[in-house]
């Protein structure tokens, strides 16, 4: 490895290196800290490799790979849907040479790598294994995690591809394969993280993620994918990926409650006896939902407190921790921003005396009571989901999604009403200008637009130098294996070595399994009681609708591959409650599809939501195509993580309003939509 290993000031001396959750022994030296990771990757395999090496040199102890959206949804960089998305929210990996370059100079045998990959997890794991072998490493020694949790993709993150049944099969085949061949690998990371980002309360976070784990374990047990004696091994290898918000005492109790519930489920439902296997193992990325665009430096403090919440109690301490960057709500973080997050972890682990004690809260009545209450409520909600047939059923009937949309709506309402204080946003918003984000200085990372072109060129060169026969054979064997019900990993590893691309691999699966559109949960979500402001907007909508001759009709959709639909869903629900007719067009749409919807549906205004940073290409494309289709008088508004410079450029291109995370006041947005439509129809 080119980078020097981390040099923690006091050498970890604890004998309990295996687990930070072991029983406390007072005063026995320092605990070994959790793994320090930073979720990162962008532009290209080469640029990301340089970033990883420099992060490791700064004392990061594990890697966390962010893939770009085409890779996550199984498209090659030159696919039409990939346009504008290549290298934006992560690294593009199209084939084995990309993967080899990503880890150049980083021996995978010695690394612990977390890969945020779900629908295409089997493929990226195959590439990882093939790359390790190319480095001369043994797959049996690999350590790390594939996220591989599809349920939460349906609920929140949106990078699913296949229907639930096929997804469940893929997940369990990865589990079955790794338990045997890559025994130190965590084949699945059940994510409650994204549930909280989608609005989940702590109780929902515990209940839904447990329901998710149960659906997988039941499937593994009942399908015979793993034997009875392997089930304990599998149980012990399932890990969780949690979130931690600013209410850090409650979050700590949540982790304790989850630990207890997991053990209970292991004992009672699966008859697990092995104490080590029964321990809840989890990593954490602290909350991004609560990070603010206003006074963004405040986020530095929020992140530190949230990190404290999941490390403070020894019993409920994360095994690995990723901290977001303070400026996430503004755009992509720069290396310096990520360094600050890493330093926050290092200060917590090496400067403070946190790791010198056993559990600080054992015997605390307050913590015990809170933990018990959360556990009971979660158990109750878990039973509701199990009674309707488990997590898969509760995805298909949209129960969980509806509950999340409702919780998120309630949270936004509480911020709007001031019931929930967010410093710098709905309270104490007076501020001097921040030197960190002064106008003109760029406080975010800009992805070079040439990165996409370079990636496509290198992909085409790769296709030219591989053997077409070997690729065709590998793809045929892959399809045969899937059709005949064999494990997908061995033919995928062979395909990786033969030079198959991400898009080709996924095409085979798309053909066999079909594609899926998950229920949105918005249609059935209950309306909240209208505030005075809501009533006023509704009257304006009624009046304008009269003037237009038809009820004000709004199209809400997400162009590109970004599946984070929470924002779009909140707008859709709010607009309905404001009296508009809302066509919710969902995620993963091409600009052509959006324009077709706008025309077919005869809408008065189009609202686009985009968080992946590809707004520059996709939104402008929608506006241009609207004009070409004779819909130039239908205004377009956009919401997303859009830096001020980009917002100006979009407005110049014809976008009527641009909203960013600081615009939390939905009633104001509704009012402005009415304004925009009224302006566009002034002559009507």
């Amino acid at each position, binding site marked *: 490895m080119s980078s020097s290993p981390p040099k923690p000031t006091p050498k970890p001396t604890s004998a309990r290196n295996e687990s930070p959750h072991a029983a406390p022994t007072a005063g026995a030296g320092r605990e070994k800290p959790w793994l320090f990771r930073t979720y990162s990757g962008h532009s290209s395999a080469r640029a990301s490799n340089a970033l990883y090496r420099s992060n490791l040199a700064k004392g990061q102890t594990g890697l966390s790979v962010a893939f770009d959206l085409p890779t996550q949804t199984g498209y090659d960089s030159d696919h039409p849907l990939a346009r504008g998305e290549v290298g934006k929210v992560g690294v593009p990996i199209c084939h084995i040479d990309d993967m080899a370059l990503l880890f150049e100079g980083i021996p995978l045998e010695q690394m612990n790598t977390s890969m945020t990959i779900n629908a295409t997890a089997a493929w990226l794991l195959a590439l990882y294994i093939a790359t390790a072998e190319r480095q001369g490493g043994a797959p049996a020694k690999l350590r790390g995690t594939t996220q591989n949790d599809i349920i939460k993709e349906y609920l929140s993150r949106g990078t699913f591809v296949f*229907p639930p049944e096929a997804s469940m099969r893929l997940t369990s085949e990865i589990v079955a394969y790794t338990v045997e061949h890559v025994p130190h690998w965590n084949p699945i990371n059940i994510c409650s993280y994204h549930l909280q980002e989608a609005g989940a309360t702590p109780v929902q976070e515990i209940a839904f993620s447990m329901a998710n784990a149960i659906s997988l374990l039941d499937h593994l047990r009942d399908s015979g994918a793993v034997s009875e004696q392997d089930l304990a091994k599998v149980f012990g290898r399932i890990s969780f990926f949690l979130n931690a918000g600013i209410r850090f005492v409650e979050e700590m109790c949540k982790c304790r409650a989850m630990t207890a519930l997991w053990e209970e489920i292991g004992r009672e439902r699966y008859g697990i006896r092995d104490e080590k296997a029964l321990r809840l193992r989890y990593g954490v990325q602290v909350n991004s939902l609560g990070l603010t665009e206003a006074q963004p430096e405040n986020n530095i403090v929020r992140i530190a407190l949230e990190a404290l919440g999941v490390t403070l109690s020894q019993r409920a301490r994360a095994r690995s921790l990723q901290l977001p960057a303070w400026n996430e709500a503004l755009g992509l973080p720069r290396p310096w921003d990520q360094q600050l997050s890493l330093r926050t972890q290092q200060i917590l682990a090496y400067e403070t005396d946190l790791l010198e004690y056993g559990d600080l809260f054992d015997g605390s009545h307050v913590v015990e009571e809170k933990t018990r209450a959360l556990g009971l409520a979660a158990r109750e909600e878990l039973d509701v989901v199990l009674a309707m047939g488990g997590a898969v059923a509760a995805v298909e*009937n949209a129960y969980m999604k509806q509950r999340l949309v409702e919780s998120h709506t309630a949270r936004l309402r509480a911020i709007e009403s001031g019931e929930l204080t967010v410093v710098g946003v709905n309270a104490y918003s007076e501020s001097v200008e921040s030197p960190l984000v002064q106008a003109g200085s760029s406080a975010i990372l800009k992805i070079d637009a040439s990165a996409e072109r370079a990636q496509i060129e290198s992909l085409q060169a790769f296709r030219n130098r591989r053997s077409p026969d070997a690729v065709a054979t590998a793809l045929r064997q892959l399809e045969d294996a899937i059709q005949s019900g064999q494990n997908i990993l061995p033919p995928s590893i062979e395909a990786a070595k033969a030079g198959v691309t991400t898009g080709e691999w996924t095409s085979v699966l798309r053909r066999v399994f079909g*594609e899926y*559109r998950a229920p*949105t949960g*918005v*249609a059935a979500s209950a*309306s909240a009681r*209208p505030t005075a402001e809501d009533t006023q907007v*509704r009257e304006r*909508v*009624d009046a304008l*609708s*009269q003037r*237009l*001759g*038809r*009820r004000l009709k709004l199209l809400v959709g997400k162009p590109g591959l970004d599946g984070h639909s929470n924002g779009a869903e909140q707008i*859709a*629900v709010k*607009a*309905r*409650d*404001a*009296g*508009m*007719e*809302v*066509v*919710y*067009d*969902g995620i993963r749409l091409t600009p052509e*599809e959006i324009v*077709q*919807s706008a*025309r*077919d*549906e*005869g809408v*008065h205004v189009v609202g686009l939501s985009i968080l992946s940073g590809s707004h520059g290409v996709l939104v402008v494309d929608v506006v241009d195509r609207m004009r070409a*289709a*004779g819909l130039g*008088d*239908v205004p377009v508004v956009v919401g997303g993580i859009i830096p001020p410079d980009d917002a100006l450029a979009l407005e110049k291109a014809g976008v009527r309003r641009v909203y960013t995370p600081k615009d939390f006041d939905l009633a104001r947005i509704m009012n402005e939509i009415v304004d925009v439509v009224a302006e*566009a*129809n*002034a*002559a*009507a």
Partner: protein
Amino acid sequence: MSKPVESPLALAERVRAGDRGGVAQALNLVDDGRAARRADALDLLDALEGHAKGRRIGITGAPGAGKSTLLDALATRLGSQGRSVAILAIDPSSRKSGGALLGDRFRMGASARDSGVFFRSLAARDQLGGLSEITGASLDVLAAAFDTVFVETVGVGQSEAGIVDLVETLVFVAQPAAGDLVQFMKAGILEWPDVFFVNKSDLSQLAGRTASELRAGIELGRPDAPGERAPVLCGSARDGVGIDELIDAIDRHHASLARTEAGARRRSAGRLARIRTALTTRYGTRGLARLTAEAPLEQQVDAQPGRSVERIIDRLGARIEAGWAGTDAAGAA
């Protein structure tokens, strides 16, 4: 939408040529509540009258029965056969705010989108059964532009009776052992559909039982077609099973309508029912009674050949209003 409007006749030309922008604009026009636009809307509909080239097919069933998935599969299959397809999806409005979330478009899969289906969502607005007068007029527009026009409604009871007036073929989508069958039988709904499709047959053994229950239920016969039994098919929209058979059944029903006089009979009965419903909604039973006191409604409708349903509704409505005005004047005198 603030654009200067082209003449209704020019717009009708575009609709009949299958121009999608024109169709969308025509749908906007017939939905326009402003009095000043009504004349244009009627001219448009008159110009489309007699030019229907498409079949109108109703898809109904309880929420969750899989109507959207089925439509997705049907549209994809028909599209691949080179037929042009339009879908009109009716969504219930929020009674509180007047707003509505029209989520059906989202459920349309990529394959149906690729096949070029024209999709329009329509909020049900005030009508309890989920069908407003706009639905009929919108279908008149779509049928002039596309080979096959589907209208999707949630089956809540009254709407089936309403939808049957608007379509040539009504498909009822049931799910296995949903327990709603008894309710439907009680409501007399099983009289109306021309084809039954028991969906999700992959999920449950109960599909076969549901199908036999249905067959038993509809054996009682339909009032308008004694001796004919609507076919009951099983399949899975999700897996594309039974879709070809369903298209066959729809085609067969359509052919039998064309072969016999039943088609023409059904169409004119449907028109008459639409006019009666609209007039009753606008003027109440007393208003309608005043009109039919002069001559049976059928006779008054037949006296206006080549006119669109909406035109006739407005004309007869004007007659009712004129009569009222006369009464009022007499009362005042």
